[in-house]
């Protein structure tokens, strides 16, 4: 067996490659991005026949992967937690249609919102969809669980979820990997009716899913990752799921036998093991990185107190934020070590939030927008997700809302409908193709009075420079095709030397009572080289 240093994300990616995937589908998002990146670069280096192209958004990724699965081959889907909201529609229904080739959806959650707008826990989605979910405790387990998940998905005919958290996704360790399994031959399953979710078929599919629940539960009950260690009657019980296992082991080291332990790595919850733990223990501590999903199930959402459960809901652990070994200590009243202190350090310490890079085109665009808006009184700019969200901070203060991918255009339309004009919104080129096109179709149909600024830096910069779907001339043609009046599709180049001209264009379009789209187009300074390389290869391909 071959050993190598891998991120948790990369261990998943390697597990998927070694499980014989024929396709990987994803949209970039922290902390999941490196899963797909590893597959793409490995497939390229080793000339593996694996389809690996970024998808326009997570829903598209899911559907492409589902198609590959229907064709009998194995496919991996990966995105961040909020990406599953975008892909929720095909995700939920694919549990009813079932799958053919192994289909594994890896969702990377971000407790503490290091780089996200919420900290939703994807295990809830798995429970909602009534499928099996793996939650690895370390990088090695991430590798094996991913491989196993493909076999399981194929054997049970359902999609299987694997849930990561930031701390595992972005932590490296040495992982032993095994020989790869060959890819599946393409083949259709004999009965296509199960894929056609007309009510009559869907009812059958849903019944199959419901009937299989005991089988999933018994799988989880027997799984070695759900490990019950009873040390003695009346001792406190500790449940540690996923990465929390390592934290509990770190804190208690050679004192672990003072507890009855249940390590969890596979859902649905193994009820027999839980019953055994509860029967043997004086109280139950629950450590899980994310929402109190296990804790709430143990107490029936607080409905009964037949067992004393301690965790987030009981107030023994913080209700939000990521779990750490120090939080495990504090929950048990163990003193956290006082680190080294430099006297007077607090007087000089300042926070250092991320900022737009020196020379960033978004900075020049925001400066022009702000000046153009000066004469219009109070204006709220609807924003979106990307590097340009950092324009919220001083000195730009260039956006006043950021909810989810693609929301800016729809929200701006709503404000315009409410009559608080002028209305302006900003959205990046990649966010626009992700989910900004559909609300723009609405706005074009109604000629909604608002100005959309597309900040086109020709790359997906925040997540590390992935290629964008559409930029440059093809983006302009798309805008016209969506129904935006040609005269009101304006292109500016956000540079200090164009500042006055840019302010003039923005003012003109704000003054127009109807829909305008201004494309502020200049390449990202940080990924300039990558953009030029991609452009050259596109031009080369066209010849």
């Amino acid at each position, binding site marked *: 067996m071959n*050993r190598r*240093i891998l991120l948790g994300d990369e261990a998943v990616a390697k597990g998927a490659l070694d499980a014989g995937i024929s396709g990987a589908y994803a949209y970039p998002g*922290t*902390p999941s*991005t*490196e899963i797909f990146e590893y597959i793409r670069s490995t497939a390229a280096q080793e000339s593996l026949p694996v389809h690996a192209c970024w998808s326009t958004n997570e829903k598209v990724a899911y559907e492409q992967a589902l198609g590959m699965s229907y064709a009998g081959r194995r496919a991996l889907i990966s995105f961040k937690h909020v990406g599953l909201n975008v892909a929720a529609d095909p995700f939920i229904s694919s549990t009813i249609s079932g799958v053919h080739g192994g289909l594994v959806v890896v969702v990377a959650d971000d407790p503490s919102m*290091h*780089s996200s707008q919420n900290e939703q826990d994807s295990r809830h989605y798995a429970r909602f969809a009534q499928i099996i979910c793996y939650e690895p405790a*370390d990088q090695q387990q991430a590798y094996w669980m991913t491989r196993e998940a493909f076999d399981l998905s194929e054997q049970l005919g359902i999609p299987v979820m694997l849930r990561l958290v930031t*701390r*595992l996704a*972005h*932590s*490296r*360790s*040495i992982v032993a990997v095994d020989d790869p399994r060959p890819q599946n031959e393409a083949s259709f399953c004999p009965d296509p009716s199960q894929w056609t979710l007309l009510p009559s078929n869907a009812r059958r599919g849903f019944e199959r899913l419901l009937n299989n629940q005991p089988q999933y539960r018994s799988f989880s009950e027997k799984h070695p990752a759900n490990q019950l260690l009873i040390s003695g009657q009346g001792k406190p019980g500790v449940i540690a799921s996923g*990465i929390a*296992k*390592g*934290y509990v082991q*770190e804190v208690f*080291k050679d004192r672990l036998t003072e507890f009855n332990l249940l390590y969890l790595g596979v859902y649905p919850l193994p009820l027999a093991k839980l019953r055994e733990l509860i029967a043997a223990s004086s109280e139950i501590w629950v450590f899980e990185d994310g929402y109190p999903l296990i804790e709430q199930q143990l107490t029936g959402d607080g409905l009964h107190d037949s067992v004393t459960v301690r965790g987030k809901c009981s107030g023994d652990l913080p209700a939000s934020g990521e779990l*750490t*070994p*120090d939080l495990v200590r504090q929950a048990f009243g163990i003193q*956290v*070590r*006082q*680190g*080294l*202190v*430099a*006297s*007077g*350090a607090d*007087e*000089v*310490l*300042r*926070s*250092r*939030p*991320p*900022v*737009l*890079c*020196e020379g960033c085109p978004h900075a020049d665009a925001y*400066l022009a927008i*702000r*000046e153009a808006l000066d004469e219009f009184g109070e204006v709220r700019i609807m924003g979106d997700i990307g*590097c340009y969200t*950092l324009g919220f901070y*001083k*000195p*730009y203060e260039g956006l006043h809302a950021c909810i989810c991918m693609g929301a800016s255009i729809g929200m701006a339309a709503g404000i315009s409908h409410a009559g608080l004009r002028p209305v302006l919104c900003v959205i990046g080129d990649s966010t626009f193709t992700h989910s900004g096109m559909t609300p723009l179709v609405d706005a074009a149909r109604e000629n909604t009075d608002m100005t959309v600024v597309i900040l086109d830096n020709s790359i997906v910069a*925040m*997540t*590390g420079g992935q290629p964008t779907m559409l930029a440059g001339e093809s983006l302009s043609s798309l805008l016209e095709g969506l129904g935006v009046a040609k005269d009101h599709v304006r292109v500016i180049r956000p540079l*200090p030397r164009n*500042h006055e001209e840019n302010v003039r264009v923005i003012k003109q379009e704000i003054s127009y009572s109807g829909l305008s789209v201004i494309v502020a187009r200049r390449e990202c300074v940080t990924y300039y080289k990558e953009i030029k390389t991609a452009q050259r290869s596109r031009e080369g391909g066209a010849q």
Partner: protein
Amino acid sequence: MKQDILLCGVGGQGILSVAYVIDQAAMESGYFLKQPEVHGMSQRGGAVQAHVRVSDVPIASDLISQGEADLLLALEPLEALRYLRFLTPEPGRVFSDITPFANIPDYPDPVSVCEKLWRLPATLLVNGAHLAKKAGSPKAQNMVVLGAASGYLPYPSALLEKHIATLFARKSERLVNVNLNAFRMGRAAGDFCDLLIRSGVSGELAARLIPWLDFQPWPVPEPVAASWLSFFANPRAGEVINRLWSEGVAVALDEEVAGCLLAGKLPGTAAAGSVSSRTHPRFTAKPVINRQ
């Protein structure tokens, strides 16, 4: 054997490259390894850190607990202060660059930041910006800090250098040499600091002097070292070092220099960039909205 290292700096400074070199050396030495790091939004000029946990027994937690790191490697002095609480009070060792990365409008006085660091029980400060530039690229600051700390890592220099070479070979042969030289200059600084302290120089005085010496990618020759030991025997040593901080110049490492400095001269100096500069050349804060 167990060694926990906290690496910190500003997004884009090259923490992940330092982590890569240590990770590879640890694996090749047969140790267990856990190494969490930061990706995403903070990589755009925010505060970033990585934990490197190495042990000869399996490691349970990816994260280092507060007060348990053995070493702190900082590519920026304000970031060293930010993550100090992770270091063991026993005491943990600090290796920090003195070069401020002033991409925030309220960056404090850089000398007062360094002062907090040199007063700690075990600190080595290096002038990464100066040495890296001398090595051939300002981006090699990270390798200067790694070199400075390398005497405290359980790997031979040759092993670390092998992985530095592998890392930069993907880019160019020139960058391999630049980074190896930056690493070796840092190593020379670290070894010289240890020599001074072993010879009875106070850790604080040694930490204050080191950033202003013009290290070469090889060890400080013995006669030069001896001249600096006699420098520290002089009660005016501290005063002379203060002058180096205010002038922001690096002095050559030859036998005459220490004596000349005591005589009130600044011989054979190279401009090393004043630390009191409030803006970083690569990353200045933007002006307020209207450019005019």
